C-alpha cells in the first residue's frame, strides 16, 4: 500500500509539469488554433528566469575581512552580495536562499511579454496557413530560443537549489518519506491550474474567451474584439509554461534543451487528453505522470523490460487509434 502511494506521489510532480505545459498548449490551441512547438522553449525560458534572478541576487563585490590574511600575506578578500549590504546580513541571505520562489515574480511579467511579442510578431501571421507551417515555424523558433539561451548560459545544467527550509524530506504518512519541494511543486501546479480554470469560469473576460473558443466568428459579430483577448490568452499560456519551468529548477537543474525534452511528451499528453480540451490536458498530464512512475517500479521493469521508457508513447498510440478524440476531446476539433 505504501509502495503504491509512493508511486502515485512520484508521478504527481512529473505529472504536474506535464499538466501545466499541456494546459498552456491547449490554451493556445483552443483559442488561436495554433500548434505551438515552441512551448517547450517557453518552459525552458521560465526555468532560466530563476537562474537569472539567482545570478542577479548573488552579484557581489569584494571587501577585506579585517584582521585576517591569506597565505601570501595579503588581506583576505570575501565576496559580499549587494543584497546583504542593502538589507542586512540575515534578510539578504534569506533573499538569496529564496531566489527560486522569488523568481515567480520576475517570471510572470517576463513570460507575459514574451508571449505577447511572440503572438503579435510571429504567430499572428500564421493563422491562415496550414498546421504544418505553424509546426515548422514554431519549431524553428524553438531552436532559436534554445540557442540564444545556450549562448548566454552555456550548455551545462545550472543548479538552482530550493530554499533551505523546503529542501529536505518530509514524513507524508507513517513509513513514507517524500522530498518537500516536490510536494510544493504539486501544490503550486494545482494552484495555478485551478487559478486558470477559475479565471476562465468566473470572470467576464474568461467567459468571452470561452465563447470565442466555441465560436470565434459569432463572438466577433457581437462586436467583441476577440483577437485582443486571444493575444492575452497566449501570454497567459506562456506564463503558465514559464511558471512550470521556474519551479521545476530545483527538481531538475535547468539546461538549454530541457524544453525540447518536455515538449514531445507534452504533445503526447495533449493528444491523449484530447486536442482543445483543458480538463483533458490536465487529467492526461497527471495520469501519464503517475503511469510513468508505476512503470518505473522494479516489478514492472523486470516483467516487461524497458516499459518505463515507452509507456507514455504506447498509451498515446493506443488512445489515438481506439479513441481518436482523446480522453475528453470535443466533437469537431481537429477530427482528422
Amino acid at each position: 500500500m505504501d509502495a503504491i502511494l509512493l508511486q502515485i506521489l512520484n508521478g504527481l510532480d512529473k505529472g504536474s509539469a506535464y499538466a501545466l505545459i499541456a494546459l498552456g498548449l491547449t490554451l493556445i490551441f483552443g483559442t488561436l488554433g495554433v500548434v505551438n512547438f515552441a512551448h517547450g522553449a517557453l518552459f525552458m525560458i521560465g526555468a532560466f528566469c530563476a537562474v537569472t534572478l539567482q545570478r542577479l541576487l548573488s552579484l557581489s563585490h569584494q571587501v577585506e575581512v579585517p584582521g585576517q590574511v591569506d597565505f601570501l600575506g595579503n588581506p583576505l578578500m570575501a565576496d559580499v552580495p549587494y543584497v546583504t549590504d542593502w538589507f542586512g546580513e540575515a534578510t539578504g541571505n534569506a533573499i538569496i536562499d529564496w531566489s527560486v520562489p522569488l523568481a515567480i515574480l520576475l517570471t510572470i511579467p517576463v513570460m507575459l511579454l514574451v508571449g505577447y511579442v511572440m503572438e503579435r510578431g510571429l504567430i499572428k501571421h500564421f493563422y491562415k496557413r496550414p498546421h504544418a507551417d505553424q509546426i515548422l515555424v514554431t519549431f524553428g523558433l524553438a531552436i532559436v530560443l534554445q540557442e540564444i539561451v545556450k549562448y548566454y548560459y552555456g550548455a551545462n545544467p545550472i543548479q538552482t537549489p530550493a530554499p533551505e527550509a523546503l529542501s529536505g524530506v518530509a514524513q507524508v504518512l507513517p513509513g513514507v518519506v517524500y522530498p518537500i519541494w516536490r510536494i510544493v511543486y504539486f501544490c503550486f501546479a494545482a494552484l495555478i491550474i485551478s487559478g486558470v480554470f477559475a479565471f476562465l469560469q468566473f470572470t467576464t473576460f474568461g467567459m468571452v474567451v470561452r465563447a470565442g473558443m466555441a465560436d470565434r466568428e459569432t463572438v466577433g459579430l457581437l462586436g467583441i474584439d476577440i483577437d485582443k483577448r486571444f493575444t492575452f490568452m497566449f501570454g497567459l499560456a506562456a506564463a503558465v509554461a514559464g511558471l512550470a519551468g521556474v519551479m521545476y529548477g530545483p527538481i531538475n537543474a535547468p539546461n538549454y534543451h530541457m524544453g525540447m525534452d518536455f515538449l514531445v511528451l507534452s504533445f503526447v499528453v495533449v493528444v491523449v487528453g484530447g486536442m482543445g480540451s483543458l480538463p483533458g490536458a490536465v487529467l492526461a498530464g497527471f495520469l501519464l505522470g503517475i503511469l510513468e512512475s508505476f512503470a518505473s517500479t522494479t516489478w514492472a521493469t523486470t516483467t516487461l523490460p524497458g516499459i518505463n521508457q515507452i509507456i507514455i508513447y504506447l498509451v498515446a498510440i493506443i488512445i489515438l487509434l481506439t479513441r481518436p478524440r482523446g480522453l475528453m476531446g470535443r466533437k469537431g476539433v481537429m477530427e482528422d
Partner: protein
Amino acid sequence: MLGLNKKDTNLLLVVLALTMLAPFILNPFPTDSGLAQFNAGYPDLMQRFAIFGIFAIGFNILFGLTGYLSFGHAAFLGVGSYSAVWMFKLLSMNILPAIILSVIIAGLFALVIGYVSLRRSGIYFSILTLAFAQMSFALAYSVLTPVTNGETGLQLTLSDPRILGSSAAADGSIPVTNLFGLEMRSAWDMAVGPWTFTFSAGYYFCAIVLLVAFYLSIRIFRSPFGMMLRAIKSNQTRLNYTGLNPKPYTLAAFVISGMYAGLAGGLMAAMDPLAGAERMQWTASGEVVLMTILGGAGTLIGPVLGAGMIKYFENILSKINESVLHGWFAFMPDGLEDFFVAIVYPFVGKGWHLTLGILFMLVVIFLPGGLVEGGQRIGAAFRRKGKKAGGAEAEAAKQQPGE
C-alpha cells in the same frame, strides 16, 4: 532519355555533372590559402552530402507529395544503420548485401509503423510518427542492448563471425568495408598547382546511389502514382468522393520514403561501420524536415540542395572560432573589429544552430517553397525585366509549381 521528358533529363544531367565533379566544385580554394577552410571537397563531408541528400529525397516523396508531415523518419535511418552493421558482423564486409538488407528491414519497419500511423492524418499523424520514433530510440538505448549495444553503439569487433569473409584482416585489424574488393575508404589525391583534389571510392559509390535515387524519385513524381499522391495532398475528401481509397497510396509513399531512409542509413554504416541510437532521436528527424523545407518541399532538386546546404554550414560554420573571426576583421580599427566579432560570433562556431534556426524561420515565413522558390522568383524577376512584352510567359512560368 530513360523515359524522362527534356526538362527532367536536363535536371538529371545537371545533378550528374554536379555529383561527379563535386571534388572539383567543392574545392575552389587552394589548399594553403586562408580560404581553404571553406573547402568542402573532403570525402567525409561529400559522403554526408550524398547520404543526407538521399534521406531528404525520400522524406520529400512522403511530405512533398502527400503533405503528411512525419516527425519520425530518423527511426528508419537508424534501423537501416543497425541492420547494415549486423550484416558486416555476420556475413561479410561487402557493402552490397548490407545495404540491400537495410533497405528491406527499413521498408518492413515503415510498413508496420505506416500502417498504424496512417490511420490518422494531420497533426495526429505527426505525433504518432514522433511517438513511434521516440519509442524506437528509447528501446534501442535501453532494452534492446543485445541488438543495438545501447549507449556505446554497435561496432565491429575481431570476434565477429563474418561467415563469407574473414574475422580479421591479414594484419590482425578489423577488415574495412568494401565493394567486391574496392575499399570504401580508399582515395586518390590529385595535385594541380596549389590545389589538391581527393577522389574517394566511398564518395563515388554514394554519388551513384544518389543519382539512382534521384532518378527514381523523378519517375515517381511523374508517374500516375505520383499524381495520385498529389491529389491526396490537395484534397483528400474529394478523392474519397470519387470512390478512390487513398490509404494504399499513402502507405506505399510512406514505405518508399522509409526505404530511402534505410538506404541512407545503410550507406552511412557502409562508409563508417558503426551505428548509434542517437541517429534515431527526434532531433535527427527534425533535421531532415529542416533540409526538405529549406530546399523546397515538393520539388525535385530542393531536398538535395537543402541537405547539402545544412551539412555544408554545419561543417564550415562550426569550424569558425573567435580567432578566425579576428583574422577576418583585422583590417578594421580595433574597437570596430571587436564590435563586429562580437556581433558575428554568436552565429558561428558552436552557435551555428542559431543561424540554422533563423534561416529556417525566414524560409518558412517568407519563402514557403524554399530555396527553389527563391531561385524561381529571382529568375522570374530577371525575365520580367528582360522582356516586358513577354510578361504573359513569365506569368505562365510562375503558375507552374516549382519542380
